[in-house]
């Protein structure tokens, strides 16, 4: 068996490239989400995009815009329900995103369309065309640029919102800005990995990197690296095993996490984890 065979096919090369770009985008976001305790926000926002996509199709608007608005509606709606009721945030989130998703399914079944529900849910990494590649790039690079340029501000928001307020950062703007960037990232990732597995790409790399290091810049680097490795090897494995590429990518990420977790448990990563801690008197 020739392991390098997948690289000979242009559509597989495209899949790896776009998958890596999306993987890095999600991985960078996942670092912020892990620190903010928002890991499941990705799950919620990604499910809630469905009604936006179907409605945008109905009125003939770009699907991206519909999806983006629905994602924002979910994030804002969760905050609203939490504020006006006595429910906890995770319960409010659960009610809002499942409600939106269910509405999307009903709309989908009532509206005759040439949308493929399979592609929305599970992605279609191997069937990505030039138009979609351009679309992903147009969104991914600006979002990445904003995230990386403003990473200090976002980091403080995630790490210690009270401190951020004291330092007169625009906390509200940062909060909704991060949600908007998250929605945008999920919207473009849908094409590749689908609603369901984008959740994993928005949690696992950041959590893996969190085990490795205490320094945020290194965390960004490690999580991006793990996402790229997972994407390339995941696509290769899926080619050889004739399996779903999205599932392979996510399982590879999970395997990297499991490996890191075991290594940390054994104390093999201590030399890495300690870096950045200036004083650990024991």
């Amino acid at each position, binding site marked *: 068996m020739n392991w390098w065979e997948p690289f000979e096919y242009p559509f597989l090369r495209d899949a790896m490239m776009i998958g890596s770009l999306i993987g890095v985008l999600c991985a960078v976001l996942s670092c912020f989400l*892990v620190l903010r*305790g*928002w*890991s*499941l926000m*990705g*799950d919620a926002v990604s*499910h809630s995009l469905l009604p936006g996509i179907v409605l945008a199709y109905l009125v003939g608007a770009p699907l991206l815009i519909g999806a983006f608005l629905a994602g924002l509606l979910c994030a804002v709606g969760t905050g609203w*329900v939490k504020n*006006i*009721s*006595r*429910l*906890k945030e*995770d*319960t*409010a*989130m*659960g*009610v809002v995103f*499942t*409600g939106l*998703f*269910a*509405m*999307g*399914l*009903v709309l*989908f*079944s*009532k509206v005759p369309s040439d949308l493929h529900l399979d592609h929305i*849910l*599970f992605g279609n990494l191997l069937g990505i065309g030039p138009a979609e590649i351009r679309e992903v790039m147009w969104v991914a690079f600006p979002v990445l640029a904003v995230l990386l340029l403003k990473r200090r501000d976002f980091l403080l928001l995630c790490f210690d919102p009270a401190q951020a307020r004291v330092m007169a950062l625009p906390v509200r703007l940062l909060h909704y800005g991060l949600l908007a960037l998250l929605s945008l990232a999920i919207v473009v990732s849908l094409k590749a990995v689908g609603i*369901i*597995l984008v*959740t*994993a790409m928005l*949690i*696992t790399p*950041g*959590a893996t990197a*969190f*085990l490795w290091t205490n320094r945020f810049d290194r965390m960004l680097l490690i999580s991006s690296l793990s996402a790229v490795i997972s994407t390339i090897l995941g696509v290769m494995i899926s080619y050889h*095993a*004739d*399996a*779903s590429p*999205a*599932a*392979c990518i*996510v*399982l590879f990420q*999970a395997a990297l*996490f499991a490996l890191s*977790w075991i290594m*940390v*448990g054994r104390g093999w990563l201590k030399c890495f984890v300690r870096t950045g801690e200036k004083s650990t008197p024991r």
Partner: protein
Amino acid sequence: MDWNDMLIPLHYDYMIKAIWVCALIGGVCGLLSAFVTLKGWSMMGDALSHAVVPGVAIAYLLGLPLVLGSFVSGMLAAWAMGVIKTRSKLREDAVLGIVFTAFFALGLLLISLYPARVDLKSIVFGNVLAISDQDLRQLLFISGAVLIMLAMKWRDLLLFCFDAQQARAIGLRVEWMHALLLMLLSATAVAALITVGALLVVAMLITPGATAYLFTDRFSRMLGISATIGVVTAGLGAYASYYANGSTGGCIVTLQTIVFLIALVVAPKHGLLARRRRERKEVQS
């Protein structure tokens, strides 16, 4: 549309069967969702409902009962979450997310390897309108078992959900209660998976309880209200799905969400209107 048209769905045996099966599962999920809301385990419901998928796929492949497969994979996921949570510095939500997405991806991988033998659509969206007799028997068995356990243990579970410290202090075995609730959730998740599909189980396990929580402060009433909401919305949703090309799960959960939104506004003590009224009174006095 006159009344005769409204009755059309009821002329079909499969519709009648779907309506009562959904109502039953809706009721069981409603009861459990009261505990889930109180315990703050909303996302555990989400996680378990995704984590049972590989078990369902393996059970399909090997011809085993779905209950067995999903139960084992649900408990494995719960175990993995527990172990990783206690032995890392990660927050609970991240651990939950990693484990359930990995399990779900494993399920999808299995399905993509053997596409002919596992019906992805019926796992993801449920298939109550064409439910097989075998699945129906399993469903009845699960519902019966869950209801009996709840009837026997609901006071202990309540104390565990409300105040685990107190439960430990009066000599309840908290670890056992924890495991019991996880088991009930896994078992119910697979029953609900057959009716509304893996993606919407979580709604059935959160929304009725959250709605009832807005209505009352008394737990026994909360149980009653959330079970009633579960039964009525699931039955009506199954009925309505006749008009929505069979998207049973979508109809049920949309209904539940509508009921929740209504409760959010009009609930007697905790609703938006009641709160406004109270604030106005405070301003006046």
